[in-house]
């Protein structure tokens, strides 16, 4: 007997040649809150999905209460007492809370007739055990996100879960809701449930955890009781010492800022953005670091006119603009490489040619007609310049690799000759080779006089590419750095705790 409720022994897992987990061992006790931290791509979610039966490990063993198990589906893991709560809930909005909690396990009379009263009572009981005040008769669609999360947790508890995994449960919650979540986590703990809590927000780790495990680049850094770490050691463990600065393109020597292309003053958009001030000059790359939910993507959307804002002003090339629209933004030299290229960047069923040509069509048109020869020449040229690997321009973009798809999005904007280009997570989900090429491209754009704004969760990327770095935390700009002055540790600390927290030594 190992004595642990969960033991993951020497787990390895790779996806298409990328080693997501390398020989990771993880143990968790009954009635323990165990937080799992690490930067993006550290392997936290992969490890937990193995425990929850979503993935099978390539090597290693999963033990539940000391017995080796082979989960082949999340359903089986759930049946044996492992429940996972994702950021996206699996609730049916038009059923009430009780029906959702006991979905598929409803108490019933013969012939499948529901015992409605018992259903409500049982749901009431589960919610009560969690200390949650939600009426089980209410429709899930009328609940807040935080309440829906409670329903998910109640569902896990009603399944007699011994282990509850929460994947960044706090990402979408406000402060008061967060307190409630903490209470519920403690209630689970009091019931003897082991809670594994994935989080980016380090402050929560110290509020909640009994133990903390740090992963980095798919490897275990360490597992420690919470009283053996402090903020700075934790940040240090997450960052590690390895640096891959050498892959980033060199910054140019001369450093005089060009003209101001965009200025944002006192911009607020309740409840997401608060008094944002920033300005971007031609020829420079401004990096925005911040956690998911910090408002970084929303800020980009406001700049590009996708999202309305409340108060404040945006000045573009010296003119104040009030109602921005993507069309207008593009006409005025802006480009936007969005976070989600499949949903927002590309028309997946159209060809490389048509996608690349799309944003700049009106500049090539003659009396509304497509000038096919010009289009073909321009697209060919930009596709060659960027080294997009495609069997032909008529190939559907859906069938290209992620890196090549991202290059098509960039190619589309290059044909518009942008003076300001916004990149939101430019290298997410693409291979290392393509990453290096995109980085070089971003630098080239700045060298040719474009103003570049780059949002990224990858702190090394922010530091390696940007000339200036803004760190966002809870909708505010926590601090601005010159890139050479900032360290990974500074940025991670600010993004996790905000600017109000004293620097720790």
């Amino acid at each position: 007997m190992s004595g642990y409720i969960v033991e993951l022994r020497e787990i390895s897992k790779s996806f298409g040649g990328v080693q997501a987990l390398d020989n990771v061992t993880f143990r968790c006790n009954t009635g323990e809150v165990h937080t799992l931290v690490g930067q993006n791509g550290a392997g936290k979610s992969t490890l937990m999905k193995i425990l929850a039966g979503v993935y099978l490990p390539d090597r290693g063993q999963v033990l539940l209460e000391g017995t080796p198990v082979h989960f082949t589906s999340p359903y089986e893991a759930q049946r044996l007492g492992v429940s996972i709560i994702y950021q996206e809930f699996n609730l049916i909005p038009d059923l009430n809370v009780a029906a959702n909690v006991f979905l598929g396990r409803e108490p019933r009379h013969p012939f499948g007739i529901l015992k409605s009263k018992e259903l409500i009572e049982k749901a009431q009981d589960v919610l009560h055990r969690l200390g949650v005040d939600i009426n089980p008769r209410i429709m899930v669609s009328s609940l807040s996100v935080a309440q829906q999360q409670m329903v998910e947790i109640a569902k896990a508890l009603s399944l007699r879960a011994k282990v509850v995994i929460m994947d960044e449960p706090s990402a979408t919650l406000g402060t008061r809701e967060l307190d409630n979540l903490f209470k519920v986590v403690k209630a689970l703990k009091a019931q003897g449930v082991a809670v594994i809590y994935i989080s980016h927000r380090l402050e929560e780790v110290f509020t909640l955890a009994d133990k903390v495990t740090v992963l980095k680049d798919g490897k275990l850094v360490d597992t420690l009781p919470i009283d053996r770490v402090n903020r700075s050691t934790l940040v240090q463990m997450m960052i590690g010492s390895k640096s891959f600065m050498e892959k980033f393109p060199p910054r140019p020597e001369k450093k005089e800022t060009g003209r101001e292309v965009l200025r944002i003053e006192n911009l607020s958009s309740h409840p997401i953005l608060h008094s944002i001030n920033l300005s971007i000059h031609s020829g420079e790359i401004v990096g925005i670091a911040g956690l998911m939910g910090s408002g970084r993507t929303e800020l980009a959307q406001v700049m590009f006119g996708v999202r309305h804002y409340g108060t404040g002003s945006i000045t573009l090339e010296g003119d104040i603009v009030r109602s921005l629209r993507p069309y207008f933004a593009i006409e005025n030299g802006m480009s936007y490489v969005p976070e989600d290229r499949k949903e927002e960047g590309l028309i997946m069923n159209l060809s490389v040619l048509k996608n690349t040509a799309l944003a700049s069509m009106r500049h090539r048109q003659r009396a509304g007609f497509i000038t096919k020869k010009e289009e073909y020449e321009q697209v060919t040229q930009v596709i060659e310049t960027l080294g997009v690997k495609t069997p032909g321009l008529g190939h559907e973009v859906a069938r290209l690799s992620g890196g090549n798809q991202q290059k098509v999005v960039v190619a589309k904007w290059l044909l518009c000759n942008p003076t300001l280009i916004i990149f939101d997570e430019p290298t997410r989900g693409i291979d290392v080779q393509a990453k290096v090429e995109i980085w070089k491209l971003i630098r080239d754009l700045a060298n040719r006089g474009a103003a570049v704004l780059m949002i990224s969760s990858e702190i090394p990327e922010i530091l390696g590419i940007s000339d200036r770095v803004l760190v966002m935390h809870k909708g505010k700009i926590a601090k601005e750095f010159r890139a050479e002055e900032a360290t990974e540790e500074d940025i991670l600390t600010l993004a996790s705790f905000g600017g109000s927290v004293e620097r720790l030594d």
Partner: protein
Amino acid sequence: MEDPLSVLIDNTERRGGNFRRYFRNHFETITIYLVLLVIAATGAVLSPDFIKSQNLLNVLLQAVALGLVSVGQTVVILSGGLDLSVGATISMVAVYSSGLMGGRPGIEVIIPVILLTTSMALVVGLLNSQLVSKFRITPFIATLATGSMVQGVVLMYTKRPKGLVSPEWKYFAEGTIGPIPIAVIFFIIIVGIAFFILSKTVLGRYIYATGGNENASRLSGIRIDRVLIFVYVFSSFMAALSALFLISRMGIGDPQVGGLTYQRYDLESIAAVLVGGTVLGGGAGGVIGTVAGVLILTLLNNVFNLVGVSTFYQWSIKGAIIIGAVAIYRMQRTTRSL
């Protein structure tokens, strides 16, 4: 190291490609025309009357009304929408045109009446586009509702066939150039124009892009609201042309001609578009496939009538063919995307 340029661009695409590539890119269109040929061949075997030129010209003429409205429907569906109001719009243009002409002769009667009734149709299209783009009502509900409103207006105007077309207007459906009916030539020209808009203009490209991914299109600077105004107004305009053809053929405007009775032009046009290979939801397809879809549906009616299949069977068989066609496209697309 491989030479990067050699793998980048496949030069065969520049010249429109070789036969194999052409075949692959237009696989669906080719398939549907083959189906059309099979149905025609079956008709020829089953009934000696089928291949008589009189019958074939008649089929073509019958195809014009459904064809015109289906061309409009194609453009709406390509943009990601749907237009269920075309049936009622056809009825409206038919009764008002015939009622206002009142059998009076002369171009000075015909032109103002047509301008007026066509404008009424365009208003319906404009309304549809605004409901969809400004009020964010799904096209299904928006056009179902406007269609219902329009049909109400029609029935308030008259419950029975009304008026009489100007004698000259009969020429539209009955006139011929050589052996070919003028209306058929007119239809071919309309198909040509639609094909041209969809493949050669910026607007056409925007229609495909909007249907493929509205969000990404907006973020690429396409003004979706303008695209939608075009597609819905164009669809209503095609419905108006359909109506004008129908009254020319029948001589009178029937308040139920567009869809309350036997042939529902709203659903039938959607069926023709889908049989023709355009995807419900938008982004892929085109008018050339729709022409085949229209001919298939019309030919089926014709062959059934010649052979003497009862209308009840006709309905069921038609339904089966629509399901079959769409299922085949679905399978082709799933296997190709793997």
